[in-house]
């Protein structure tokens, strides 16, 4: 017999209360002279035997009440495993405790607490001569206590154990547990598995483990499978949340797609799903979930301003496994890009104006760019630091002072778009601003009367990423009559990434990095003088994305999605500056730089919001990210008892007993409460009689 709350047994001392009252509360009777004493005597004689019986009955009933209540509160239970293990002789024993996410399922009392209780009871039931080890079974097996006789260590490790956020690797854990028993001189091996037996934790296509005796002989271990879960573990979970901007709906419009999955046996109707922005519910939706089905809900939200927002999709009514009923991510809504356009060849006729087409592209509906156009004389009166991107459109070579301003602008993280034209003198530019140029100008080339087209583009680059299939047709249809040839790259020059290459192998668009600053080099005109690109549908997205890349707003349009239990690559170009990541619990995780130069966190242990720490320990909200629970962890589908028996049936002795079955068999505390209630009722009746 085991007890769920053994300290309640202290209450059994209350059974002495009726006796103590009987012994110490015998009040001195009042002395009363009475004339009809003969009648008193006669009455007493007549009722003496009945009274004696009544007194004994009352005493017994009250003692029973005082015994039954604390005994019931102690939750006694007959344990299956103990009987099985005690009848087969001594065995080296390994206790495997399931730490899968499903153990967080709770119907008022978490499954994991039951698992700890079962494991404790199993350890208590061991004979003193039986050595035991404890394996905590999370994503990987962990030998918490090696084989030995330290029962206190086992109980302490059990007490400190907590459920994880991933499915458990039970097969590996069983192998590992069997391995801990190898050194024991005893002739038998036993594995006690305390688990919820979910399908994601135990693979039935893998054979049960084998153990070895001290002489190396392979033996089949006894497996006592203590299934602590009820017959089913119904669960609904948010298994996905995706965010993407919707520029066609507005500058700050985003679309959120939430995926909800049911792991319950029945259908669920009108489950409420909320969209929360920074904790406030901004949208509600109702969804129907079929048995084992997935439902997608799409929310569109127009953010009131730019900034960093915490977006959460949450099922309004939590179920027994509440941790997977919501999913969050960080959305960085960029502010509008401010671009300064220096028009090197202004004209009163729009189609002849150098900046007209760029200005129109940036001013188009849904564009995240706010453009300001100036001629070269007026442009240098502007403070470049007020802008995110600088467009030098067919501008003559700048003076050294202007070059210095451009360099400062780049060093602060600004972006420069440079296009050529008749005003661009290659020698003058090379001399004045060679440091800025990704490659030095060579000479202007004329490609016949029909011009040449684009041979290839680099789709890996964020600017060019949308130009796929039909979207690239405009770009490839454009004809380039003239363009500037570039010198080959120098060894010490900053790397220049060709984004668009023409048919003859000449570079058309080159991207380069200068410290924090970015440069885009377009070696033709941005009007109709040298090409007809401006007339194709590709021109507008090319210019808008160029402005976005230069200002950095393209960098992290997709929120970083992290998963608990996995390492996460910090998706920021500045990630090398991160000194660590602060977990939701406050723990600081180190950041490691991988061979390819990206910064990576160690596997994330808990769900929630993580903050990237800069070297000065400050955080930047736009770098924050959420770690969510892996969808498979939410799958609480149970292995059917017959399948489990079939799997374990390959070994000599298996015990599976679900909590439901045990409850049906031994409702000990319910019975005790009923007994106490009946005794209380009879006591009341007897007292009144």
């Amino acid at each position: 017999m085991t007890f769920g709350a053994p300290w309640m047994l202290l209450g059994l001392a209350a059974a002495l209360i009726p006796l103590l009252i009987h012994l110490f509360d015998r009040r001195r009777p009042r002395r009363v002279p009475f004339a009809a004493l003969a009648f008193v005597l006669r009455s007493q004689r007549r009722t003496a035997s009945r009274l004696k019986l009544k007194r004994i009955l009352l005493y017994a009933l009250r003692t029973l009440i005082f015994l039954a209540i604390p005994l019931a509160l102690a939750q006694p239970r007959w344990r299956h495993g103990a009987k099985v293990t005690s009848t087969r002789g001594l065995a080296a024993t390994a206790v495997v405790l399931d730490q899968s996410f499903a153990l967080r399922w709770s119907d008022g009392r978490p499954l994991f607490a039951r698992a700890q209780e079962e494991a404790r009871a199993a350890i208590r039931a061991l004979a003193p001569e039986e050595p035991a080890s404890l394996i905590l079974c999370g994503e990987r097996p962990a030998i918490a206590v090696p084989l030995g006789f330290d029962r206190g260590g086992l109980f302490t490790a059990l007490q400190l154990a907590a459920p994880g956020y991933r499915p458990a690797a039970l097969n590996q854990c069983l192998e590992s547990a069997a391995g801990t028993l190898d050194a024991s001189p005893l002739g038998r091996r036993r594995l006690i598995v305390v688990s919820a037996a979910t399908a994601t934790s135990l693979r039935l296509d893998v054979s049960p483990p084998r153990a070895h005796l001290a002489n190396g002989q392979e033996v089949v271990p006894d497996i006592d499978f203590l299934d602590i879960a009820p017959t089913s573990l119904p669960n609904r979970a948010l298994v996905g949340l995706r965010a993407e901007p919707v520029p066609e709906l507005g500058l700050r419009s985003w679309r959120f797609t939430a995926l909800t999955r049911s792991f319950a046996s029945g259908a669920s109707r009108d489950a409420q799903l909320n969209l929360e922005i920074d904790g406030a519910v901004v949208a509600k939706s109702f969804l129907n979930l079929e048995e084992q089905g997935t439902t997608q809900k799409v929310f569109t939200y127009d953010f009131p301003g730019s900034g960093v927002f915490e977006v959460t999709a949450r099922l309004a009514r939590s179920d027994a496994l509440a941790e997977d009923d919501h999913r969050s991510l960080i959305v960085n809504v960029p502010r509008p890009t401010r671009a300064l356009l220096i028009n090197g060849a202004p004209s009163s006729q729009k189609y002849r104006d150098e900046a007209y087409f760029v200005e129109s592209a940036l001013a188009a509906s849904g564009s995240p760019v706010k453009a300001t156009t100036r001629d070269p004389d007026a442009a240098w009166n502007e403070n470049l630091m007020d802008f995110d991107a600088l467009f030098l459109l067919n501008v003559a070579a700048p003076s050294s002072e202007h070059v210095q301003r451009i360099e400062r602008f780049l060093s602060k993280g600004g972006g420069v778009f440079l296009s050529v034209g008749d005003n661009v003198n290659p020698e003058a530019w090379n001399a004045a601003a060679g440091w800025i140029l990704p490659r030095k100008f060579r000479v202007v080339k004329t490609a016949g009367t029909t011009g040449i087209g684009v041979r290839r583009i680099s789709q890996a680059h964020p600017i060019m990423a949308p130009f796929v299939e039909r979207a690239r047709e405009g770009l490839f249809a454009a004809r380039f009559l003239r363009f500037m040839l570039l010198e080959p790259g120098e060894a010490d020059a900053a790397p220049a990434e060709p984004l668009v290459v023409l048919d003859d192998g000449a570079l058309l668009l080159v991207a380069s990095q200068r410290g924090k600053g970015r440069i885009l080099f377009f070696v033709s005109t941005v009007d109709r003088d040298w090409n007809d690109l401006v007339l194709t549908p590709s021109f507008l997205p090319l210019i808008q994305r160029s402005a976005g890349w230069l200002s950095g707003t393209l960098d992290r349009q997709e929120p970083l999605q992290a998963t608990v239990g996995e390492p996460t690559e910090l998706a920021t170009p500045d990630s090398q500056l991160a000194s660590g990541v602060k977990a939701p619990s406050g723990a600081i995780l180190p950041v490691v730089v991988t061979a390819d130069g990206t910064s990576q966190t160690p596997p994330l242990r808990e769900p929630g919001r993580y903050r990237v720490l800069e070297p000065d320990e400050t955080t930047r909200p736009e770098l924050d990210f959420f770690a969510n629970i892996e969808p498979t962890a939410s799958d609480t589908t149970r292995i059917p008892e017959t399948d489990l028996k079939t799997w374990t049936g390959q070994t000599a002795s298996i015990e599976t007993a679900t909590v439901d079955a045990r409850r049906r068999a031994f409702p000990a505390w319910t019975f005790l409460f009923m007994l106490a209630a009946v005794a209380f009722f009879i006591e009341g009746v007897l007292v009144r009689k």
Partner: protein
Amino acid sequence: MAILDVATLGRIGGLKLRVRAVVEGILSGLHKSPLQGQSVEFAEHKEYAPGDELRHLDWKAFGKFDRYYVKRFEHETNLRATMVIDASGSMGFGTGGLSKLDLAKTLAAALAHVLIHQQDSAGVTVLSAESPVTIPPRSAPTHLQTILEVLENSNADGGTDLVSALKMLAERLPRRSFVCIFSDLFDERAEVLRGITSLRSHKHEVAIFHLMDPAEITFPYDDPTLFTSMEDDANNEVNPRDIRDSYLQEIRSFLDKAKSACELAGCHYQLVRTDEALDEVLLRFIAHRGSRR
């Protein structure tokens, strides 16, 4: 309506004063004493024959008719009442203002007062642990004082042999006496009713005032109690709650048995609780007597 309640009477110290208070209350409510023992009702005239009482010759009829006529009366008695007071220890019990003995003495004295007031004879016998004290019936007004003194000096103590005393009284009292017994009828042998029957067999008219304290009828005790006897050293500790039902059953059975036995023997039976108004008790008794005439 009670003229004087028991509590008030209890505060009146002397028996004489108590009796006066009770009797005045009774007399003020009566026009004619129903306890008249001597009948003087004229029945008929009879012509004188030798041997008739000369004192019954009607001289007025002789003057009218010149013949001797003798007056004949319908009934001719003289009431001789004896008050029998049980002064055993149990009669000393009382939870109100008066004990059962106090009540018995007051009732007896009040009755004696009424009887002597109308020229009937009244006596008293006090039955105590020692030998009975008996004052024979007399009709002299000064006799009342003697009765009161005897009653005043009697106390409840020890046990009494009520049956033997009643048998002895039955033989000694003049025939056709009126006997009023004031007792709680507690007798271990339960033979007290046989003594009453022997009184009836000697043609005595018997009235029994069965005196009971309310506590003896309702048993109003809750906590564990050590009950001690009022006649000897016996005692008994009980939890009254445990035996209340049984006790009440016993006492009801006792009262029913006493009443039915008295009625069977042709006695007047009256249960008197010590918390009852005494004038009401006496008026009820007198009314009963009046209805019999």
